[in-house]
């Protein structure tokens, strides 16, 4: 039977508990900022919200834009390469047998090691950051996509093959739509991963971007600036996640 009424999706993005916990944290922080000197803690270590607000006003949009561009650019390149390689590995069992152990090995390498390799191997800053992001996020996209392809029901694969599609049609009409839920999950994981990785990479060697501004704030012992830039990073992550969720609800509107 066709369903006459669909349940309205309730999206409690700001439930009461969230607001309460954030509010309590802010109050405790503010009290601590006033009490810090009397507790023997330097005043700059716990700045008041007024001071943090002043730092927020000095945020340079160009650094936010640069970090955002690096994250999105690297994620798109990682996704395209990861997906293409996953499709090739799905099509060729021998290719998978050769590449799978290497990919697992890459995934086990710590981010800091990738950053050091990038600094030692490459001269350009953008290339170093791109390399680190690709090395960290690419394998995640690849393995998630490949696992999802392997999970596409045998019944559906048999049905599709019975209509004799070309290899490209097989992927476009069946495999890619079928793995969209896994791809979305992969994007959510990689978004937070990429923002953390790009910040560390910028911290080490960049002259622009949020990571670089965090390094400057650290050199100036400005906790308020660190707090402000961290808030921007968190807001950026939430915004990007909200965008992915919006895309997800559009792409997966067929789900009951």
């Amino acid at each position, binding site marked *: 039977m*066709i369903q006459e009424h669909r349940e309205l999706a309730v999206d409690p993005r700001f439930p009461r508990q969230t607001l309460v916990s954030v509010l309590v944290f802010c109050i405790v922080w503010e009290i601590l900022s006033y009490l810090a000197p009397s507790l023997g803690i330097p005043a700059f270590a716990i700045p008041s919200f007024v001071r943090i607000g002043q730092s927020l006003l000095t945020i340079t949009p160009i650094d936010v834009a640069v970090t955002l561009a690096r994250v999105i650019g690297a994620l798109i390149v990682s996704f395209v390469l990861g997906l293409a390689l996953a499709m090739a590995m799905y099509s060729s069992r021998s290719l998978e047998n050769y590449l799978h152990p290497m990919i697992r090995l890459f995934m086990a390498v710590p981010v800091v090691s990738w950053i050091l390799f990038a600094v030692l191997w490459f001269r350009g800053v953008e290339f170093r950051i791109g390399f680190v992001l690709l090395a960290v996020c690419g394998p995640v996209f690849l393995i998630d996509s490949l696992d999802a392809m392997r999970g596409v029901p045998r019944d*559906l694969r*048999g049905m599709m093959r*019975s*209509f*004799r599609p070309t290899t490209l049609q097989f992927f476009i009409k069946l495999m890619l739509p*079928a793995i969209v839920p896994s791809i979305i999950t992969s994007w959510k994981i990689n978004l937070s991963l990429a923002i953390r990785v790009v910040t560390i990479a910028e911290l080490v060697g960049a002259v622009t971007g949020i990571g670089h501004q965090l390094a400057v704030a650290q050199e100036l012992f400005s906790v308020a600036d660190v707090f402000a830039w961290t808030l921007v990073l968190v807001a950026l992550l939430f915004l990007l996640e909200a965008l992915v969720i919006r895309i997800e609800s559009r792409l997966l509107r067929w789900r*009951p």
Partner: protein
Amino acid sequence: MSSPPPIEVRQLRKVFHQATSGQAVVAIERLDIRIEPREVVAIVGQTGCGKSTFFDLMIGLEAPTEGSIVIGDKTPYGDFDHFRGQIATVFQQDRLLPWRSALDNARLPLELIGLPEEVQRERALTWLKRLGLERFIDAYPHELSGGMRQRVAIARAFVVQPNILLADEAFGHLDEVTAAELRETFLALARECGSTAILITHQLEEAIGVGNRIIVFGKSAKLLADIKVAQWPKSEHAMLREAIQMTLQSNSPDPRLARVS
């Protein structure tokens, strides 16, 4: 649509090797059948007798170990692309793509052939209307009942107006009334399209009700009986059913079948 070619199954043999032990399992042992154009053939057999393997070989999803299936002068496995749009299947479960509407599911084979989008829509709509689904063209599979989903699957099979239609236990999971109704619709459409239809079933009533011809498979798809239903008047259908039942149970042809057919 061109006239469907005859189907010749010659000394067909299919052997699988178990993944763990490597032991050989003979799914089909030296099968010979000829199916004439526009025949409606019901294939019956017990579970595990090789019906589904035969189905996969007919579609071309599996390669024969020995022997061949020849349709016209081509083989469905060796000349895989040649049969695009010529062989259509209805499976036990509807196997609709959950992210596609009824209309988009029905037009899938036309997309694969590469017809213009307007033609795809128009043709899919025609078939969905014929199957009584005009009000549900935009519905997703989860919004449809089992019978309606199977109707969409039938529309998806007929939309290419295939030469050969294959149905693997296509109505077995539905309630009796819906199954009977869909079976009738399926057969009427197959006759109208002039397609050769092969229905695999384990239900004897269904086989007797739909087929011009009933092929009875024993173990390893051994051909136990090849029955022309027209030779059995309706009054003897109960006896025919009993004779097929006995054949299946003993894995050897019941003498009553040999005598009459």
